[in-house]
C-alpha cells in the first residue's frame, strides 16, 4: 500500500533542502508536474479560477470546485498536493469544513489566509485582512480538525498583512507567531517585497516558511532562498501561464492559417513527448486493461477489425 501523501510530505520536509512547488490546475497539469520530477505540487486557486471559470482570482471559486479539482488531481498523481484554501470560504466554522473536505480529497496540506472574504490574489492591490483574534480562531479551528483526522496534514497559515493598507513586516511577524501558537505548521508570508524582509521573517517566525516568488516579491533563486531558510517556494501560476501562451499562439496561428498551421504544429511536435497524443494520454494502458478484464479474444477482434490508431 502506498504511504499517505501527508506522511510522505512530513518526511520530505524533515530532510534538508528547499522544495519547489509548481501550481497545478487540473489532472493533466498535475501529471506533467509529477513527470518533471517535482517533489510536491500546489493547487493554485488563481489558476483554477482562470482555467475552469475563465475569471480572475477574486474569490469566485467555491470550496466545492476546489475540492473536486483536488480529487481529480490526487486520483491521477501520487505527489503530495498542497491546496489553496483561500479564506477557508467563510468564518472559522466554514474553515473547519474546508479542512475536512481537503483531507478527504487526498490533499497533503493546505493554506488558509487572513484576508476578508471574498479574497483576492495576494499580489493584486485592494486586499483587506480580518482582525488577528478572528484569524487565530480560524487557525485553531483548522488545527483541531487536522489533529482529529490526520495530524500529518500540513496546515499553512498565510498572512496577507504585508500588502494591506498600513501593513508592515512587524505585523506579519506578530500575526505569524500568533498563528503558529494557534496550531499552524508553516507560515506563508504573502507579498514580502525585499530579500531583507524574507531573511527577517525566516529568522523571527517560529515555524518553517512558505515563499511565493511572484508579483511584488523578489525572484530570488532556489539556492538563495534555501540559505535564507525557506522550506517551500511556490510557483503558483507558471504552468497556467505556459499553457495559456501555448493555446494563444496555437489559436492565433490556426485562425490565420487553418490546416497549414495545424499540420506545421504536428510536424514540429512529431518527436515531442506529447507528439503522439493518443499514446501520451494513455490509450495503450486502456487496451492492456481491456485485455486483462474483458473477454480477450473479443477485444483483439475489436481492434483488428476497426479503423484508427491501434494502441
Amino acid at each position, binding site marked *: 500500500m502506498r504511504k499517505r501523501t501527508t506522511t510522505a510530505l512530513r518526511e520530505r520536509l524533515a530532510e534538508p*533542502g528547499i522544495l519547489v512547488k*509548481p501550481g497545478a490546475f*487540473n*489532472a493533466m497539469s*498535475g*501529471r*506533467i*508536474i*509529477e*513527470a*518533471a*520530477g*517535482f*517533489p510536491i505540487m500546489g493547487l493554485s486557486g488563481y489558476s483554477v479560477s482562470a*482555467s*475552469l*471559470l*475563465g*475569471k480572475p482570482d477574486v474569490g469566485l471559486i467555491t470550496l466545492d470546485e476546489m475540492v473536486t479539482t483536488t480529487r*481529480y*488531481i490526487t*486520483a*491521477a*498523481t*501520487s505527489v503530495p498536493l498542497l491546496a489553496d484554501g483561500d479564506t477557508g470560504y467563510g468564518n472559522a466554522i466554514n474553515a473547519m469544513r474546508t479542512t475536512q473536505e481537503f483531507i478527504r480529497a487526498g490533499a497533503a496540506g493546505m493554506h488558509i489566509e487572513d484576508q476578508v472574504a471574498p479574497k483576492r490574489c495576494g499580489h493584486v492591490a485592494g486586499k483587506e485582512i480580518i482582525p488577528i483574534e478572528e484569524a487565530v480562531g480560524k487557525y485553531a479551528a483548522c488545527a483541531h480538525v487536522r489533529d482529529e483526522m490526520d495530524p500529518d496534514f500540513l496546515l499553512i497559515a498565510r498572512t496577507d498583512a504585508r500588502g494591506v493598507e498600513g501593513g508592515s513586516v512587524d505585523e506579519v511577524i506578530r500575526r505569524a507567531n500568533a498563528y503558529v501558537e494557534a496550531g499552524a505548521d508553516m507560515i506563508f508570508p504573502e507579498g514580502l517585497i525585499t530579500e531583507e524582509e524574507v531573511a527577517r521573517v525566516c529568522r523571527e517566525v517560529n515555524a518553517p516558511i512558505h515563499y511565493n516568488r511572484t508579483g511584488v516579491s523578489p525572484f530570488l*533563486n532556489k539556492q538563495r532562498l534555501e540559505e535564507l531558510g525557506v522550506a517551500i517556494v511556490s510557483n503558483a501560476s*507558471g*504552468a497556467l501561464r*505556459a499553457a495559456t501562451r*501555448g*493555446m494563444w499562439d*496555437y*489559436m492565433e496561428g*490556426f*485562425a490565420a492559417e*487553418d*490546416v*497549414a498551421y*495545424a499540420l506545421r504544429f504536428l510536424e514540429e*511536435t512529431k518527436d*515531442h*513527448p*506529447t507528439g503522439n*497524443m*493518443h*499514446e*501520451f*494520454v*494513455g*490509450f495503450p*494502458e*486502456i*487496451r492492456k486493461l*481491456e485485455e486483462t478484464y474483458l473477454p480477450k479474444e473479443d477485444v483483439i477482434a*475489436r481492434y*483488428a477489425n*476497426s*479503423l*484508427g*490508431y491501434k494502441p
Partner: protein
Amino acid sequence: MSGLQNGAAKVKASTAMRRLVEGTETFVRPGCHDALSARIAEAAGFKAIAMSGYAVSVSLLGKPDVGLITLTETVRMCRYICNAVDIPVMVDADTGYGNVINVMRTVDEIINAGAGGLFIEDQVDPKRCGHVAGKRLVSIEEAAGKIRAADKVRRELDPDVILMARTDGRGAMGGSFQESLDRAKAYADAGADIIFPEGLTSADEIAAMVDALDVPISYNRTGVSPMLSLAELEQLGVRMVANAIGAFRASSRALWDHLGEAEGPPAQIAPQARLERFLQAESQE
C-alpha cells in the same frame, strides 16, 4: 453570470449556432476543454467552438477518452464554458450516457447549461475516441431512436438548439462507407439538423456523403481523416469543421516544456525518462 459577461446583450447561443449551420459558409469550431481555452478561441476570432470530450477527459481526469467522463462532469464543464464566452458552443455528448432514456436527460441538462448545440454518437457505451480502433456500433434502429428522443426534448426546450448526429459507422467494427451513409440518412430522418460522419477516409467519401444528404455535414480533420484545407472543404460542401484537440495539444506541449525546464526538481530528468515516468504513473492506477 450576467454582469460578469464580457459582451453586451447578445443573440441566444442556440440561435447563433443555427444561423451558422443553416448558413452557406464553411466554418471552423475549434475544440476547447475549459473556460480559458474557450475564451482564447473566442479571442482568436472563431464564430463557434466545441467542447471536446477527448480534451475534457484528458485535462480534467488525466485519462484517455474511453467513456470515463460522466454526464455530470460534461454538464458542469459546459456551464463553465458557456458562461465565459459569447460565441455558441457545440457540446460533445458522447453516446448520450446510456440508452434512449438517458439521452433525454442528457439533452435536457446540456441545453439548460447553455449549449448552442450538441452531438450524440452511435457507438456502444462506453464509447471511445473516434480515431482510435476498437469502436463498436449500436443498431441503426436503436441509434435513430436516440436521435428521435433527443429531437423531442430539444423541440420542447428550445427548437433552435442544433442537434447533430454523429455516426462512427465508417471506422467501427463491421463498418463501411455504405454503413455510415445509411446511418446518416436514418439520423437525418429522425430529426438531426446536421450529420457528423466520423472517420471518413478520403475527399471522395466526403463528396459522396454531402451529395447523398439533405442536411449539412460536420467534418473532423484528424486521425484517419485527411487534413484538407478550408478551401477544399468548402468546395466539397462541408458546413462545419472540427479541430477537436489542437488547443489541448498546444497546452500539453507548453506545460511539458515549461515544467521540464523550470528550476526546481532535485535532479533534471532526461526527456525520455520523463515520458516513461509519466506513462508509468498512469499504469500504477
